[in-house]
């Protein structure tokens, strides 16, 4: 990695997202178009101003349409432009903007549109049937696995290794579903949810219960990225992508300790080094770690260096990760509260940091004028992570 070779600083100048919902009438193309329009409008640009387009979308199997990136191109605004689709499973939400970043940082393109879309409702009777196709066909599929198993096994190992209580993990679901109340796109916001609701929700694959899991959703989100050359022509409040990192481990997931995701820590180290972050606990004001399950928020905070192993659960219990706490975590409401249209969670990770750091988060605004945030996503066969450090400059 040669940080000296980066030619241009990259800023986010606009973001947009659709509703996240169990089922939207709009097609993937229509949702993509809606989100892209919102982002372009906020940036004060039209598609003619855009030099290149990045599309992020997760498995083709959700749609039953192969080579989905090509199929979605019209909605993403990529027609007759340099265009590419990236896909790293759940990690796509933060990886697609990284792909956008290198297009601009390289100096090749001035303005890049990043669009992420997921339409999970097409897959019948449930998107789980498509998830079944990510397992190894020889050793795993004959056992008829459900993707929730893998999370349950990881959560169990995490709880055992670091002596973490289920009750503290469930508090993450409570916090995020309450945080989502201020989000205009939220699918599962609940101002009244209690710890008892989560603990008593129906067992899925224990220790995982229904309310520990984010819902499948339809939705889209988009960002406009520009270089340092024109950012201030478009807005007084650009938010800079100062560090990016990504890393992937082997698919042989039964051959590693599931308690601590080292590949997340490696991705974070890369992003922190680029952003000049020496002590993340001191320097990060807001975190948007990937929270498809409540324990994942804790495990990711620890791998991001924002808590010691096992400590994130204690921080949660003590209220430190609340919106007005020492380290606000998932002030968007996260995947648990806003919804989980895989790649489109771009809008509640990188999108949320853009709105928070530019003071546009409305009812969700974190107090105290936050200036530095970290967004992280996680995916493929629980082996990949992407991390972005974002900053508002004084």
């Amino acid at each position, binding site marked *: 990695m040669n940080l000296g070779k980066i030619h241009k600083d990259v800023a986010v100048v606009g973001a947009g997202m659709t509703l996240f919902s169990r089922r939207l009438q709009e097609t993937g193309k229509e949702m993509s178009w809606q989100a892209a329009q919102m982002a372009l409008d906020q940036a004060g640009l039209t598609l003619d101003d855009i030099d290149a387009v990045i599309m992020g979308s997760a498995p083709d199997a959700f749609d039953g349409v192969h080579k989905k990136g090509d199929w979605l191109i019209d909605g993403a605004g990529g027609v007759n432009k340099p265009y590419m689709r990236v896909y790293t499973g759940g990690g796509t939400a933060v990886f697609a903007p990284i792909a956008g970043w290198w297009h601009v940082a390289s100096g090749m393109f001035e303005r890049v549109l990043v669009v992420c879309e997921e339409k999970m409702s097409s897959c019948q009777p449930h998107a789980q049937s498509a998830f079944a196709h990510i397992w190894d066909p020889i050793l795993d599929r004959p056992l008829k696995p459900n993707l*929730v198993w893998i999370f349950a096994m990881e959560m169990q190992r995490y709880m055992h290794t670091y002596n973490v209580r289920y009750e503290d993990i469930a508090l993450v679901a409570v916090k995020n579903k309450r945080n989502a109340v201020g989000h205009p796109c939220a699918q599962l916001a609940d101002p009244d949810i209690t710890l008892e609701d989560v603990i008593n929700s129906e*067992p899925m*694959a224990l220790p995982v219960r229904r309310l520990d899991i984010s819902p499948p959703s339809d939705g889209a989100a988009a960002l406009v990225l520009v270089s340092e050359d024109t950012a201030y022509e478009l807005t007084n409040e650009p938010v800079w992508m100062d560090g990016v990192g990504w890393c992937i481990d082997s698919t042989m997931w039964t051959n590693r300790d599931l308690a601590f995701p080292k590949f997340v820590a490696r991705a974070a180290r890369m992003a922190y080094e680029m952003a000049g972050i020496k002590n993340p606990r001191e320097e990060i004001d807001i975190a948007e770690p990937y929270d498809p399950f409540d324990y994942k928020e804790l495990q990711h905070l620890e791998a991001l260096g924002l808590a010691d192993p096992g400590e994130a659960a204690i921080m949660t219990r003590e209220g430190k990760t609340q919106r007005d706490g020492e380290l606000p975590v998932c002030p968007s409401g996260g995947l648990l509260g806003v919804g989980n249209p895989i790649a489109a969670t771009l809008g509640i990770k990188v999108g949320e940091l853009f709105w928070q750091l530019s003071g546009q988060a409305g009812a969700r605004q974190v107090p105290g004028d936050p200036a530095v945030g970290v967004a992280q996503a996680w995916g493929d066969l629980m082996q990949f992570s992407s991390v972005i450090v974002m900053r508002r400059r004084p």
Partner: protein
Amino acid sequence: MKETVKPRGKPLSGEEMKQVCHVVARPQVKYAWAVGVAMSHFLAGLKQGKILGRTCVQCERILVPPRMFCERCYRTTDEWVELPGTGVIETFSISYIDTDANRIKEPIFVGVLAFDGAPPHSGIMHYFGEVSQDAIHIGMPVEPVWKPGGERVGAITDIKYFRPREGARPSSNSKRRKRG
């Protein structure tokens, strides 16, 4: 007239979905996967009631599931070894859902076990059986319950499940690591 509020999408209920236009299709695609050099040997071993691993002398692992190259050292693995087949539970789940997320009445026990006679984390996913919800725990010694020889076909399901191994000394894996 120009819209002042941008469209953000229209949610549909299940009932509405039945009324609006939609198209139903079921893709018909079939696959026959060649299981490969390493896995052919491993599956043939299962048919004989053996658990086989591949050694990598550089990182000192015994790779189970086996592969012909080590993805960490990026070199050819060295030789086949037979493991005793017993192991300990690394992690587990008690599942109330099937592969399509339908609910099942009697929960099934699934998890990862690490095989004895190999370095940590040399293991596979499988079912656990003959164990109660209260008894199953991380670090529990287990042994395979094989299908009868005549019913084995060279598949991971030649092992029906792993069950608690009576009289085994608990492994050091079972000790709970204290938070520092």
